[in-house]
């Protein structure tokens, strides 16, 4: 039996062979971890500074309040940010209630049955469906089916068909609903987590004093869950704001030189009478008396111009185009959802995409400027959501 070399064992225990190398690897890994993190964070910095250097100088008031134009020096993003605003408003009005109610249902109400598991599977899978497939669905259902009532459901009453044709198709409503469905999983998951975080005792206390289930949910669970829900909603909305592909599918326009809503003082061109789908009068012999508000010309159906004077009333044939100037009444009427929901649209990401795909350098500059605006808005929204989540974690200790 060999004698144990006590000194050697002690040496190994105190100074294991290769320890220095192992410790070095440990340190070296920190270096690589930091490098990887810097690459990630550096991308953000590079994105912002690249866009700023390319397009920062184009961020003038004229850019924000100008329509797109074939001349890049004059082009602006007015129609696209107004379009984005209206689309996002529609999205929020659909996604917030539906997502919140669905989240509450799954957390508070859902019985354990196959339907509930089907809903859970659907929510989980929706989150992973590529956004362009939502676009394909929207083309099939909202643009083609609901947008062409005469073709697909001619048996329904005419009023209903007209409303469907007006609102759906390649419209703001279609875009808003599509994006709402896209962000639905985000809102649902955030709501579920927030609702789950509310302690059971609060529900028990409310139920014990006789509140019904919905009263408990409405008055005692939701107020505590709300900040968490808001976080999810902000993240969802910012995603919808930057989403391009599904809206391209729906047919978001790339060149829009009008607004879906009007402001007082805007001039508008209106064709009088009942028109067919090509814009010609159904009954060319019919006339209508029109009171002209401004000096100028009207364009008759045979494309000749006729000078007119303000304050006079003229008998004009159907199909004549008359310029009118919107007053406050017209403007307010145009803000009603029934008016703009059915309007064609463009949004900021589509506008940026269109400018990016042009070869001229000037268009790339305004693409960068539009991208910078988009990027700053989405980053600010996400920053707000992160801050909110952080505050939440700090302030509520159950």
């Amino acid at each position, binding site marked *: 039996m060999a004698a144990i070399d006590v000194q050697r064992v002690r040496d190994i225990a105190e100074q294991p062979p290769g320890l220095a190398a192992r410790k070095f690897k440990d340190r070296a890994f920190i270096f690589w971890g930091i490098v990887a*993190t810097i690459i990630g964070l550096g991308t953000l910095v590079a994105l912002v500074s690249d866009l700023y250097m*390319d397009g920062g100088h184009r961020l003038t008031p004229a850019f924000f309040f100008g329509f797109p134009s074939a001349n890049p020096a004059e082009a602006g993003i007015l129609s696209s940010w107004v379009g984005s605003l209206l689309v996002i408003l529609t999205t929020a009005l659909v996604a917030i209630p539906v997502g919140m109610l669905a989240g509450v249902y799954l957390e508070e109400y859902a019985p354990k049955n196959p339907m509930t598991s089907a809903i859970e599977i659907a929510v989980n899978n929706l989150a992973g469906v590529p956004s362009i497939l939502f676009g394909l669905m929207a083309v099939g259902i909202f643009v083609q089916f609901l947008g062409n009532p005469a073709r697909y459901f001619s048996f329904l009453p005419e009023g209903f068909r007209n409303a469907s044709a007006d609102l759906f198709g390649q419209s703001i409503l279609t875009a808003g609903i599509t994006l709402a469905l896209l962000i639905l999983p985000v809102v649902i998951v955030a709501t579920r987590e927030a609702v789950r975080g509310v302690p059971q005792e609060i529900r028990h206390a409310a139920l014990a004093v006789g509140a019904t289930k919905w009263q408990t949910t409405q008055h005692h669970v939701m107020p505590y869950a709300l900040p968490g829900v808001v976080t999810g909603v902000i993240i969802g909305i910012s995603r919808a704001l930057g989403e391009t592909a599904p809206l391209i599918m729906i047919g978001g326009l790339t060149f829009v030189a009008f607004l879906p809503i009007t402001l007082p003082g805007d001039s508008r061109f209106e064709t009088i009478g009942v028109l067919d789908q090509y814009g010609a009068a159904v009954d060319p012999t019919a006339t209508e008396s029109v009171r002209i508000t401004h000096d100028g010309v009207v364009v008759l159906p045979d494309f000749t111009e006729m000078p007119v004077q303000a304050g006079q009333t003229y008998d004009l044939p159907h199909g004549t185009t008359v310029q009118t100037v919107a007053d406050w009444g017209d403007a307010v009427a145009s803000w009603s959802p029934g008016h703009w929901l059915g309007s064609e649209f463009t949004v900021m990401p589509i506008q940026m995409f269109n400018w990016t795909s042009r070869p001229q350098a000037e268009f790339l500059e305004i693409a960068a400027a539009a991208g910078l605006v988009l990027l700053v808005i989405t980053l600010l929204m996400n920053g707000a959501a992160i801050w909110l989540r952080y505050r939440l974690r700090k302030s509520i200790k159950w």
Partner: protein
Amino acid sequence: MRSGVGVERDFTTRKVRWGERIMEGLLFAAAAAAVAVVLGIVFVVVSESAKFFAQVSMIEFLTSTTWTPLFDNPQYGIAPLLTGTFMSTLVALAVAVPLGLLVAIYLSEFATARTRETIKPTLELLAAVPTVVYGYFALLFVTPLLQNIIPGLPSFNLLSAGLVMGLMIIPYIASLSEDAMRAVPRAMREGSFAMGATRLETAFRVVVPAAVSGVVGAVILGMSRAIGETMIVVVAGGQLPQVVTNPTQQGATVTAFIAQVALGDLPFGTLEYNSIFAAGLALLLLTLLFNLVAFYLQRRFREAY
């Protein structure tokens, strides 16, 4: 009026509260909307693809290596689009998996809590950047940069699109893997440290193996993001459907083709237009496949503590 005290009340029957019933119905309807959306997507894609496959044989779709639906002599082989998708996804994963895992291990095993709380949400901003902005970045920042390194690189190529896509999915991989690693119980790490292992050895031999199901799930989530990503490849990839064998080539992905047709003015219902639904079906099946694989792997390698 008598007060309620002492009045006999019937506690055996319950009053039907219609308000409660209506709310419950509303809540259910909202939740069921999610199912309706899934069914809607599947219905539209499958029914419109059926019209396509009534005119084009499934065999041609799967075996032909030419995708030219918009030509006079149209050919409908999905292979070029699939190679484009796989190539860009592969490049993206080659960027995002190493970087994402490095970040995840660093944040979970090495960084202080304060660093982690700052870096994680900041990195998540990468996933919030609109993809069209990434497209611009790929085309006008990354491609010129790469052209300095790789001479002769065309201005549209899948390499830069894939690289930028990889940067985009870093947070998915890093954040979810980090969550999985942090969920590994502290006792396992302490056991490893007690045996004399360094933090790095513990990370690779104890923590990552224990968290592997979460890590795989994270990678697959990132992958399905890359497969479904549209705007980056539309802007920077070149939209030319050819069989891609090298990432420096230009190419079209399944998603890029769908967007390209939608940007044109083909009327709905034509065979050319319906080809996007067939491409959409391929995309749907592909993402479904990866979701199933992720689900299976997570079950298979799940370690419960």
